[in-house]
Structure formats: structure tokens, C-alpha cells
């Protein structure tokens, strides 16, 4: 059993370092924060980290296949813009209509109230998933390299987002915003469960931030089963050696399609949450680009190899957490805002350069060229 644990630890060395690093840094953050270890700080932090964590999970799946998805930020932004129309929670319902090249298309009416909100959220997640599927189809059937295929589809998604929201705007239902961006206690009192959150057994849990619970749920209910499925294992096999995976009779095309679709779903979750959090939709191109680039950084810091085959989306969550905690630190230590981008860049550079230790250990130079 002990050696078993040692093997697992060695296999997940990147993830383990990520978790330890995060725990140390985050503990230090709370110790030096005047209101450290309070629910309010936790809630604020988990709100700030959720979208990046989702986008980083979305990025992980293609990276595991030695690909790269440059469209995650754009897809997230597109879903964010859709959500600002579909999740307004207007009591009278929302008519679904749009002008396309001068033609008015109507798709009926989204019901009002809670069913409408849930339906709208499902549609938004569906749009994200479809976007991922489109990425997968271009990569699999078009046989275009993922990095360049998603560069192109990303432009299309940004185009759609700009069409929907030329200016930032829209609205998200207030109750939904309140329920999902606060602690579990507020969630319970908003949706009227557990005696409006006053049930005695519920009290010890009431401080937990809702976004954190959502993140853990998505990771456990979506990622873990996927990783254990045949498609999930095929993804790892493709990343290690696509030729060998093909020769072993694995369904490569199907696995790739599923992988990109799953990535789209994660990006969709990020978009929906960003809309809920900001209560608006914004087709912000620089922001989309920043999310894409940060997602790559989070994936690498979380211990997933850009060469594919090793790592996990759980690691990427911790990568995103570390990235965000670093910026939290700037607030406490009163580092001049002007120096913050420099420190962020330097920390990223140092973090990725640590992997150079591998180079020193290599005895045969040929092993460098993998």
C-alpha cells in the first residue's frame, strides 16, 4: 500500500507540487490578510477564481492530446454574451428573436421565472458544448492542427459575441446572481431550502462559498467519470503516442470529438458564471485573449505537460488558483499596481523554468528532443 501511494505520488508529481504550493501560498495569504479565514474573503476569492478555473479545465483536455485550444476565451465570451440575453429572469419571459443579414428569425419565447432561468442556463451550456463540438469537428474531420483550427473558430466566436453585444450590456436575474456568488447559507435562503438555510445541521456548512461547491461538483461529476471512461483514457493515449493509440484500435476520432466537446462545456460553464458574476454580457476581445493565455499558464502550472499525455484538469484548477492567489497577494502587500504585471510575468516565467531541472538530470542529450 505504501509503495502504491509512492508510485501514485510520483506519477502525479506535478499535481502534488501544485497542491502543496497552493496550500502554502494561500495559507500565507490568509495569515497576512486582516480578515483572513473569514467566509467573506473565501467567497470573494472563489468568485474571482471560478471562471479562470473553468477555462483552464477547458484548456486541459486538448492539451492532454498534445493540442492547444486558442478559442477557450472566445467561446467563454460568446456564452457570456448569450447568457446576458437568456438569463435575465424577466417575469414575462424573453422572446427569442434575432436579425441575421436583415432577416428576422424567431424561435418562440423563453418562459419567465425559475423554469425560464434554468432553461436559459441549459441553452447557454448547450451553446458552449456545441462550440466545443464544432472545434472538434474542424480538428477531426478537417484534419487541421488544433492550434490553428481554434485560432480560426475563436475569431468566429468573437464575431458572434460582438454581434450579440456590440456594447457591454444585458442583465442577469438578481436572485440568481445573489444565490451563486455568495456562501451556501445565502444560496439556501435565496432558493428557500433547508428552512431558508436556518436548519441547525446546515449551520456548520453555511460559510462555504457556493462557487467553490460548484467547482468541486463539476470536477467530480463531469471530469472524474470522463477521465475513467474509455474516451478519457484514449485522450491520454493520444497525447502519449497517437500512432500507438491508433494501432491499439482505440477510437481516436470519437475520443477527440468528445474531448473538444467537453472542453466546450467547461468553457460554457465559465461563460455562464462570468455573466452571473458581472450581471452583464461583454464581448471584450482583450479579456478573451487574456483568459486564453492565462488558461495555458494555469494548465502548465497545474502540472499538465504541453507535450500531452500527463496531467489532469484537477491540476489545472490548482494552477488557476495559484495564478489568482498571486494577484491577491499584490493587494495585501501593497505592491505598486504598476509593478504588478511585471511580477506576474516574472513569477510565471520562473514557475515554468523550474521544469528545466529535468534538463540537468538528462544523461543522453538525445532525450532532450522529445
Amino acid at each position, binding site marked *: 500500500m505504501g509503495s502504491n501511494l509512492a508510485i501514485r505520488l510520483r506519477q502525479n508529481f506535478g499535481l502534488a507540487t501544485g497542491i502543496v504550493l497552493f496550500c502554502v501560498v494561500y495559507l500565507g495569504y490568509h495569515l497576512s490578510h486582516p480578515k483572513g479565514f473569514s467566509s467573506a474573503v473565501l467567497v470573494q476569492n472563489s468568485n474571482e477564481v471560478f471562471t479562470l478555473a473553468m477555462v483552464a479545465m477547458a484548456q486541459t483536455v486538448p492539451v492532454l492530446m498534445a493540442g492547444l485550444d*486558442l478559442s477557450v476565451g472566445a467561446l467563454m465570451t460568446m456564452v457570456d454574451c448569450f447568457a446576458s440575453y437568456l438569463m435575465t429572469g424577466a417575469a414575462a419571459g424573453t422572446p427569442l428573436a434575432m436579425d441575421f443579414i436583415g432577416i428576422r428569425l424567431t424561435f418562440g419565447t423563453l418562459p419567465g421565472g425559475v423554469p425560464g432561468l434554468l432553461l436559459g442556463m441549459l441553452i447557454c451550456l448547450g451553446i458552449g458544448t456545441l462550440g466545443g463540438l464544432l472545434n472538434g469537428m474542424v480538428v477531426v474531420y478537417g*484534419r487541421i*492542427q488544433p492550434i*490553428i483550427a481554434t485560432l480560426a473558430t475563436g*475569431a468566429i466566436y468573437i464575431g458572434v459575441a460582438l454581434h450579440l453585444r456590440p456594447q457591454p450590456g444585458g442583465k442577469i436575474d438578481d436572485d440568481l446572481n445573489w444565490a451563486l456568488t455568495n456562501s451556501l447559507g445565502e444560496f439556501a435562503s435565496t432558493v428557500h431550502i433547508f428552512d431558508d438555510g436556518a436548519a441547525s445541521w446546515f449551520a456548520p456548512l453555511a460559510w462555504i462559498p457556493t462557487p467553490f461547491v460548484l467547482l468541486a461538483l463539476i470536477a467530480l461529476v463531469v471530469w472524474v467519470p470522463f477521465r475513467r471512461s474509455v474516451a478519457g483514457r484514449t485522450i491520454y493515449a493520444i497525447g502519449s503516442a497517437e*500512432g500507438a493509440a491508433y494501432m491499439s484500435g482505440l477510437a481516436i476520432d470519437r475520443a477527440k470529438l468528445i474531448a473538444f466537446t467537453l472542453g466546450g462545456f467547461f468553457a460554457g460553464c465559465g461563460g455562464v458564471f462570468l455573466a452571473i458574476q458581472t450581471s452583464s454580457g461583454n464581448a471584450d476581445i482583450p479579456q478573451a485573449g487574456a483568459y486564453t493565455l492565462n488558461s495555458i499558464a494555469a494548465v502548465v502550472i497545474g502540472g499538465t505537460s*504541453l507535450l500531452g499525455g500527463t496531467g489532469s484538469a484537477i491540476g489545472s484548477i490548482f494552477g488557476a488558483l495559484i495564478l489568482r492567489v498571486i494577484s491577491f497577494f499584490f493587494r495585501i502587500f501593497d505592491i505598486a499596481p504598476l509593478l504588478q*504585471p*511585471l511580477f506576474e510575468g516574472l513569477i510565471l516565467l520562473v514557475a515554468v523554468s523550474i521544469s528545466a531541472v529535468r534538463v540537468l538530470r538528462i544523461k543522453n542529450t538525445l532525450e*532532450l528532443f522529445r
Partner: protein
Amino acid sequence: MSALAGGLKLSREDRPIAIAALFLVAILIAGTVYTWVRFGSAPLLSPTYLLLQLQIGAFLGIVAAGMMVVILISQIDLSTPWTLTAAAMMATAVGGPWAIPIALGIGLAVGIVNGLGIAYLRVPSMIFTLGVNAVMRGLMVAHTGGFAPQTEATPLMRSLAAERTFGIPNALFVWIAVSVVIVLILRRAPLGRYIYAIGNKEAAAYLAGVQTRVVTVICFAICGLTAGIAGVLLAGYSQKAYQGMGDAYLLPAIAAVVIGGTNILGGRGRYLGTLIGVILIVLLNSVLSIMDMPEAGRQAIYGSVIILMLLVYGRSERVTS
């Protein structure tokens, strides 16, 4: 179209270039038909207009030339936007006769740092250049205080970017000079052979005696240098340097290289293709702006065109063994 290309017996490298050139002509014709029907004129075919487009295209073309060299060794340089901006900002800040040497020096230095990290520390280029980009951005934010710098481009920079000699924009001459150097390196110099060899299989190139790490550093230095040149020109063209001036050049440069038939995985591609890819993107942009296409439609069309062109000739082979 593919039947035509097949009939001409084009090589694997020439086919994408021929099709991209055809596509270029198609865009010109479509744009001209549109302007003829709508305004009764054909500005796209007038030499003045085309020269103006080429002048604007020179900035992208120079960035793409450097990008192509790193893509050929199956790497990528994402630090271009802020390398370009840093070079432009320092050039305007220093001013005087040293403006341009400083800018080129910054480009070169950033390129060498990139190359060292990627060749010797073996950090994937995707993430290392991303980090360098963030650092350069941080340095520039700290330097300018987050505001647009008040300094102006020197007369020489302005002349290089915005003025004309014999009616031809000077920026075009710079682009041609950069192109000639890149073509000479790729086709005539041993360095060019090494670059293609590394792009195909670095281990094999190493065993054949190529100092692959040195070549990698040189390639990134070239890419940084071209970003520096583009920064000088862009600052000269708009009279000053500003935050985020390089952001609009990264993805189009990669797209231009790939549209021109260069394999994104390295080892294959001709410079002529990159040239055509740049002109195609610039012309596509100008046709869309003539059509008053809103930004939303532009982005969508831009993405669709890249996918469409790659579907025609950029498909990779199925991995079967």
C-alpha cells in the same frame, strides 16, 4: 481548383501557394465587383490604393517573416506583441540617432532570451514566450506608468514608415529588404538547411552534427529582431508608441504564415507563401472595410476564410503508425 493544381503537377510546397494566390485574385475580383456595383468605381485596382495597402501590410509582413522562421523549427513566438511595443516605446523614449538601434537591440535581446529559455532550459516555446510577453508588458507598464507615452517618433522613423521614395512607400522597401534577407537565409545559407532539418526532426539534425540549440537561439533572435523593426515602423507610422499597439499583429501573423502553406508543426514551407498570406489578409481586411462590415462580421469571416483555405490544402495526414 485542386484538379487544376493537380494538372499542373505542383509540388506539396507549391500547391498551397498557388491556391492562396488564386484566392487572392478571387478576393480582388469580388471586392472590385462590389465597389463597381455600389459606387461605380474600382479603387481596389488602382495602383495608389494597392500601394497604400502594401504599406499597411508591410508591418504585418515583417512580423510574419520572423514568425515564419520560428514556426519552421516547430516552435512559436507569442512574445511578439509586447516585444514590438517595447521596441517602439523605447525608440520614442530615447529619440535621436539612437532610437532605431535601441529598438532593434531590444528586439534582438528579447529574441535571444526566448531562444535561450527554449533551447537550453527546454521550456515549451508556447509557454516561455508567453511569460516573456507578460514580463515585457510589465516592464513597459512600469516604465510608462500605464499611460500612453508622450514621446514622439524621430524624423527618421517617420520617414521610414510614412514617406515615399519615387512614389513607393519606404515601408515597402524595408519589407522587401527583410524578405530578401529571410529568403537568402532559408534558401542559400547553411542556416536555412539547418532550420528545415530541425523542423522535421530535431534529434536527427542533432545527430547529423547541427548545433540545434544555437540554431534555435538564432531563429528566435531573428523573430525578435523583426518584431523590433515592425515596432520602429509602426511607431513611425502613427507618430508615437502606445499600449497594446502590437496586439493586433500576433494572430494575423501566425495565420498569414499558415495560410501561405507553412506547416504549423515545422519543417515545411516557402517564404513566397508567407508573402501571399500577408497580402491576402491585408486585402481581405480592406475589402471588408470597404464593404462597411461591422467588426463582428469581420471576425467571423476572417475565421471562416482561414478554416476554408486550410480545408482546401492544409489538411494534415492521418496518424496511423
